[in-house]
């Protein structure tokens, strides 16, 4: 048993740190730190910086323009990026569609789409969920009917994250209505500029615009945009679910959030003393820190399994459940530490107070409410428990 990283891994960490120190723009890092809303150009700017370095597709194999990093290297990169307040890499093209095309796409599709993901030509979004098909994704109803060289799509997708910035959407659509629902689903790529598509914003609980509904009316899509065979969509969806699971615990985000909570509790006062000296509040921080320290090791143990034995198993659902609970607990503490000052909305109202802005004590209630999503999307924590019940406990 040896919990230390190898010399090479430590050297790699130094390299990542130096790169971030030299290349992550201060204004971007500051925006991330205070929980400000990242605009499209902010995300594109960071993508371009990483792409120049060859690190944007850090989960891809070298042959497709990726880094070929090991699970541990990926983890180190994610941890350091979070620590430096780097914007999150938008996952839809890079972490989702990329691996799908590499595994199931045709040579033409790989050659056409992958470089465009890297250089930012195409911004992708994910069209899985529908109003009636959330946890029960296989019940999706959006229809794609073959008509000559085209599919004609009718239906509705929803919860489409950052669809307002997107050029393309990858969709799960129904291509067969008889038989088991899973057997009639296909994976297709749709240009959002195609006639018949309408995107409408959904306002979230804290007031932000991050998700959308997408309506399809007689949308004609070239049959060449199908990925894999017709009716193979469920296999692809399952592959994707099992694929990018290394960062699922969000350990890097939590470490950062813990630091912020401690800093906040040192700055804010109760009864004339720094909040962190209050034993009740300190105990709450300690409880989460203890969980997080254990989570780091749980995460590394599963990474180690992935690195030494190939793909990680269903036990990664543990990472999703515990990881999101920890992140949400930290958001909760940040909100509590601010007390009533967490409530002004929009939080800029508070910002007549330069001291608060400087301290980055902003948006904490908004972050807390927004991050309730963490335990809902990507397979809710209930669904993760169902997976564990069956696949791990065999109950």
């Amino acid at each position: 048993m040896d919990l230390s990283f190898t010399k090479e891994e430590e050297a790699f960490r130094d390299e990542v740190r130096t790169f971030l120190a030299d290349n992550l723009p201060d204004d971007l890092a500051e925006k991330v730190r205070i929980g400000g809303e990242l605009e499209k150009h902010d995300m594109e700017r960071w993508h371009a910086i990483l792409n120049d370095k060859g690190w944007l597709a850090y989960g891809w194999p070298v042959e497709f323009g990726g880094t070929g990093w090991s699970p541990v290297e990926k983890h180190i990169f994610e941890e350091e990026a979070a620590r430096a307040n780097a914007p999150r890499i938008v996952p839809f093209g890079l972490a989702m569609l990329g691996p799908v095309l590499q595994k199931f796409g045709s040579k033409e599709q790989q050659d056409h789409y992958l470089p465009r993901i890297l250089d930012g030509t195409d911004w992708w979004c994910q069209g899985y969920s529908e109003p009636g098909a959330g946890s029960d994704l296989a019940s999706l109803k959006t229809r794609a009917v073959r008509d000559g060289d085209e599919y004609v799509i009718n239906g509705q997708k929803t919860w489409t994250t950052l669809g307002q910035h997107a050029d393309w959407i990858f969709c799960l659509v129904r291509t067969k209505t008889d038989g088991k629902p899973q057997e009639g689903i296909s994976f297709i790529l749709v240009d959002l500029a195609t006639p018949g598509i309408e995107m409408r914003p959904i306002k979230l609980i804290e007031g932000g615009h991050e998700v959308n509904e997408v309506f399809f009316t007689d949308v004609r899509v070239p049959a060449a945009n199908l990925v894999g065979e017709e009716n193979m969509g469920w296999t692809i969806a399952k592959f994707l679910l099992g694929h990018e699971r290394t960062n699922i615990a969000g350990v890097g985000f939590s470490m950062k959030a813990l630091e912020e909570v401690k800093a906040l509790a040192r700055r804010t006062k109760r009864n004339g003393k720094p909040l962190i000296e209050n034993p009740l509040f300190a105990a709450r921080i300690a409880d989460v820190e203890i969980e997080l320290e254990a989570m780091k090791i749980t995460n590394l143990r599963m990474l180690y399994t992935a690195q030494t034995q190939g793909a990680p198993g269903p036990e990664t659902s543990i990472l999703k459940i515990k990881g999101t609970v920890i992140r949400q607990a930290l958001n909760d503490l940040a909100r509590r530490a601010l007390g009533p000052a967490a409530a002004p909305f929009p939080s800029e109202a508070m910002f007549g107070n330069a001291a608060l802005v400087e301290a980055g004590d902003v948006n904490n209630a908004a972050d807390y409410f927004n991050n309730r999503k963490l335990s809902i999307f990507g397979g809710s924590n209930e669904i993760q428990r169902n997976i564990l019940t069956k696949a791990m406990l065999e109950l």
Partner: protein
Amino acid sequence: MDFSLTEDRRMLSDSLNRFISDKYGYDHRVKVAYDAPFHDTALWAEMCELGVLYALAPEDAGGFGGAGFDITTVFEALGRGICPAPVLGSLLASKLLTAAGADQSALLDGSVRYAVAIGELDAPYDLDAIETEAKDGKLTGRKAVVYGGADAKVFLVAARSGGTLAVYEVKASDAQVTGYALIDGGGAAELFLDATPGTEVLADATAALEDALDAGRLALCAEAVGAMDATNEILLDYLRTRKQFGVAIGKFQALQHRAVDLVTEIEQARSITILAASKMGAEEQAKFVAMAKTLIGRAARLVAEEAIQMHGGIAMTWEAAVSHYAKRLVMIDAQLGDVDYHLERVIATYAA
């Protein structure tokens, strides 16, 4: 033993519930709660005609209530309809004016809106840490997140004068007031005082302030109970109607037991609020109010988080009423002392 409301309170409760559901329906509420003045001033006048504010003051101060159960009756209805009307400020102000023996007819008929400015950025809950100073009738300091302050005409401000805490009346027109919406709707303000003129209302005010705050805390507990009841109804309705995997999601045992846990917490919350209301004016008032605010803080957050989780994505939207109830339920904890603040007050009663 009798857990039923008196006839008068039941009538007030019925008429206020009806008023809010008829006129302050959800769509209207969301429309007004986030834009200045952060509530509907025409409805404020109508609501005052129902006697809502008179119910908060005792007879010798010109009202017809003022007891713990009067406060809970009014605020439970406000919570049930997540009503953004700035009644909390009026309650706190009425308590202070009653303690001072001052005339409050303009407050009670609703014609002059009052807000009470106690908390500061570094003293959000605790009176001892207040730094705003009064000297020769001039006040200097900053009051943070003053509930109802966005469109109040008059502020009652807690400030240090010599060694004691006093309460001053400050006209909004004499001070710098920055109003804003709260994330859970309704308005508040930052009150900037810079040698701003104030008239002393209460000289040695610590006890009166604590008493007023206890009334406010009780009110918030009752508001949370009303909002938890409404949230629970919305949740149960959704569990019965939302289908996934071919069945109503309420059929999944993983959700059923949690729904039962919520109902259990809500009943406990209701009980401790009744208990605290019964202790108003008694020696143990502070302890039981602190107990109630602690339990409510915990229960309300649990109900909010679980209601969101069991709804799934739909509860993450502005459009869904449950998201607004959840915000209100969580943010109540940050008003007039949070779980930890009141837990410490309970613990302090253990000292011999």
